[in-house]
């Protein structure tokens, strides 16, 4: 036991040193970007030649993604870091509180895929226009923007508030049909949100909290609930 813990701690220590060195390297690289470029470490030096034999003229045939060990942090938010899930500035200041709360429009009126598809779907501009053809189209600047988008034929470039990694398979249909309420994941949008904000981490541990023991599993599956719980913990259930 002791020797194994020692081995683990040694490994940790070495890794920490390695990572620190790596980070220091990365930071100094950023500071002196231009001059350092020629002498900086290029991973292509240690990885075998690319499909076009490092001949840049052939790179467009079988392009490789650029090598990047640590992606740039600029303009990015963290998965699952609630504190940093800022209220993103959206192209139109749409309020869930007004529409879903005050006006009591059902979620699925706009997010019409929720019960049918893996994607709940962001409503087409036409859905907004169903009402806003007749409701205050000229006197409010946000609605003027909406009409402009509609008339231009360009989609509204909403920013994703809930963005899952590409390796995740998530089906709205399965959750909605299983009786999971929208608010369980998306928060009380009708009460709190003038700007849509992520309230949950969307990290795997958070998903598993429910997948381990959601009350709906017993309710829906009865005798086979245990099997269903096992299935819900299978990696392939959610990972592509």
């Amino acid at each position: 036991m002791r020797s194994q813990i020692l081995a683990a701690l040694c490994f940790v220590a070495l890794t920490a040193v390695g990572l620190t060195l790596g980070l220091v390297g990365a930071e100094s690289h950023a500071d002196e970007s231009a001059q350092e470029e020629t002498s900086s470490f290029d991973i292509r030096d240690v990885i075998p030649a690319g499909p076009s034999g490092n001949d840049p003229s052939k790179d467009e045939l079988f392009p490789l993604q650029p090598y990047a060990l640590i992606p740039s942090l600029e303009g990015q938010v963290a998965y699952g870091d609630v504190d940093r899930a800022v209220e993103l500035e959206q192209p139109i200041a749409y309020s869930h509180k007004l529409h879903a709360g005050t006006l009591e429009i059902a979620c699925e009126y706009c997010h019409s895929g929720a019960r049918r598809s893996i994607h709940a779907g962001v409503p087409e501009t036409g859905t907004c226009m169903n009402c806003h053809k007749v409701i205050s189209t000229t006197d409010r600047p946000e609605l003027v923007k909406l009409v402009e988008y509609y008339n231009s034929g360009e989609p509204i470039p909403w920013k994703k508030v809930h963005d899952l990694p590409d390796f995740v398979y998530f089906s709205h249909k399965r959750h909605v049909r299983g009786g999971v309420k929208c608010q369980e994941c998306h928060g009380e949008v009708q009460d709190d949100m003038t700007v849509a904000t992520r309230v949950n981490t969307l990290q795997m541990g958070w998903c598993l909290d429910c997948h381990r023991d959601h009350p709906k599993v017993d309710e829906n599956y009865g005798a086979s609930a245990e099997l269903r719980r096992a299935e819900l913990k299978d990696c392939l259930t959610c990972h592509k």
Partner: protein
Amino acid sequence: MAELNRRDFLKVLGISGTASACSIDPVTPIENVLPYVVTPDQIIPGIATWFATQCNGCEAGCGVMAKNREGRIINIQGNPEHPTNKGSICAKGVSDLQASYSPDRFDGPMVGGKAASWDDALEATASAVKAAQVAGKKIVWLGRKRTGATAAMTDEIIGAMGGTVLRWEPLGTEALRAAAKAVFGIDEAPHYALDQAHTVVSFGADFLNSWGNPSHARGFAEARDPSLCGFVTQFWTIEGRLSNTGVNCDVHLSPVPGTEAGLALATAKLLADKKGYTGRAASLIAGIDAEALIGAAGVRMERIVELVDRLAHNDSVVMPSGTTTIHEEAVNIATLILNEVAGNIGNSVVFGPTANDTGINTFAEVAAVLGDAANIGVLFLDELDIAYTMPASIGRAALGQIGQVVAFSSEPTGSIGAQSIVLPSGTGLESWGDNEAISGRHTLQQPSMKPLKDIRCSSDSLLGLAGLLGLGAATDETPGLPADFATYLQGWWNDNVFEKTDAPDFAKFWRNAVQTGGHFFDVTPTGAAVQMTRLPDAGAPADGTTLALFPHPFLYDGRHANRTWAQEVPEPVSGLVWGTWAELSPATVSNLGLEEGDNVTLTTDAGSIDVGFFASPAVRDDVVAVVMGNGHEGAGRYADLTGANPVNLLSEMQYAGASVQVTRAGKNETLSSQIGNIDQDDRPITYLVKAKDVGTGSGPGSIVHLHHPPIDERLTQAGLLDMYPEPEHPTYRFALAIDNNRCNGCGACEAACYAENNIATVGPEQARRGRHMGWIRLSRYWEGSGEEPDVRFQPTMCQQCSHAPCEGVCPVLATYHNLDGLNAMIYNRCVGTRYCANNCPYSARRFNYHSYDWPEPFHMMLNPDVLTRTMGVMEKCTFCVQRIREVKDTYRDVGQTVPDEALLTLPACASACPAEAITFGNAKDPNSTVSKIFQDERAYAMLSELNTKPGVRYLARISHSEVEDGQGGGH
């Protein structure tokens, strides 16, 4: 092991590690989500919409289903309603999807090498036509095979211009049609029904592959399936090499090139004598000296006697010649006479539901027009690449003299020069169209996605042209031409298809036809009576070493050379990718002192090319067979990349027979083989059973002669054999059954797998480094020799073992056995140790040495249900888990487990397979189809002695060989 388990170790590691690495967060960019402005009726984001349409991969005219996700076609599958392919699709059809997303596509019309507007391009074309009319020069349309309304409209408009319409296929049925005309007076290539034939004899026809029409592969597989027809067909091939079809043979006779016709006639004579045949062909063969002809062919008399005996007693089919046959027409005539004597005409060889070659010209007719190229004012090229597919003395020579070339093409070809006018015609996924490639089978092509480029289908361009030239205007007698082709198409279908049905209402009929992919009449097969009175000359035997070109199974005549899937799926017989090679006999290879990776120079009267080589055990010493398809100039980035064009070795349009010299050249820079060893090296990887044993066994493996004994189940039950507990499969144990006896090695499964699973194509350089990414390897072992080559195909993918050697060695549990029996692979968990691949006895795993990217717009056809893998990640087959997930989800809505019929062809490989050799299902359910196949006497698990308990079972190939112990020896 009690003190510190792996998880605790990792936790200690994690907690301490976090402190030092706390500034690294998992990060993601902010993405936009762009909704529709107005959603199209048919689209729900996240759910695929399927459109029935037609395949344009070759001239067979199959029906396909195009899968549209969020506006882009991401996959093509066979249309189960279509009588030709019945739900299957070949590798050419799958690869044709890449045509729509080719990075080399024209953005819009081009005039004189510069981008132009449609108005300007059509105006330029119209003035060229007017100039030609004024100067009294010819207007010629030269294109691929077109039928139905598409052909009718071309004929109408070009006819009105005073032009000539020529249609020609480089791998068409010309020689067979000519033979049928000579023998029976019917200008049709007959249809061959293989499913009831006890004996199939081929004189070189590549009917399982480059013939395109998958009904032959299906019929051949049915004839080989003892559970369906109670017999196993015996396949004899008589050719100087083994084609992709020929390798499936039981007996291979290799006559002197040029003597095949005589051999067929000698066989007919012996058969007639044996049967006492007195039919209409009796007088034709009366004077034949069978013994002399067989002697001249260099074939053993006993073999022909054996063949005659088989033909005399059972139903048979004699298939015609192939591209590698000299004197094709004479051989075809002889095969038809042999069919007549064997009593096949009207039974297995029929007329009626045959390839509809109305309006298809012979090469002589095309060459006559092109020979007078100086008098051609305007040449409309309909996708045909005459610079590549014709000898330079005809194709290129003509292109240099023609006034104006107007090309209907989506991509550049070698025939499109700087002065050409390009009218991009789009692909079959973007426009309306139709075909009647087989008589009575009217297939519709509907636009299934928005065009990626500024295109008009060739018919619409013609209508625009007709408008500019003042043609086809309405008169008192005729209503004139409509404004667009979609209207013309409906009108033509109304007059030519709807009128022949008893449907009451055209609108309803049309809607139904669009939904089902067309309208299919049953054409009654008929026989034919011999009209021939005198046998033509059978042709002289070849002298010296002769050249024989054969089509690439995926690149075909070269039209798919710019498709990376077609390039990178290994050619099934040689296993080679990226390049052109010559098949040389082992004797030729050793005489020239060739080593692996060498090039050879091939020289004929017409020219010389340098190509790689493949040492084929079955090719004659005096034959050099060269694959077509590569070596393009100006036909796109991938087409131009590798190989040499063997058509440049021809001085006339005869694929076989030219005298050729072979010399050693330098090293080949691009070719590489991807299926490894040609023999099993005495390791029993695939098995054979004898035809006489079939039906005598009583359960799995009972007639498979296992080299290593199968696992005794009692040991397993007593817990003496397995270190690990049996995995639990509460509901499903997904499993695959592959019938090696049905598989003919066509490669459709491999291409379909590439398309479905976003598998990267790596290019020649990476392929040579062993970084080929295909998830299915079509293993090919060449166990026999001489007249009984015994070639065995075995599609090998991840075997989804219950006791998988890969799982135990993964340090991060990225791969594990799940509740459905799948060997799951969680890509984002993988850290790339490659231990799993090292430990996999089936070599089923592929490692990403790079993050392969997709050149725009290839990325638009990626399957959104499957992750694209990045550098450092291991990947492999999981039985198309995304499809399993989808079908389970569908049945969960109604609270059911997935029924057998919804699983049978679920994975991409099983749905594509033209031979229906792959069956998928739930082995947990004892009544499922796959469970029943697992109980077959021929069933075996690959390398079962390793006790990996795979989820894949193979049915052993059935051999007619008399040789005992064909299993590949011992060690």
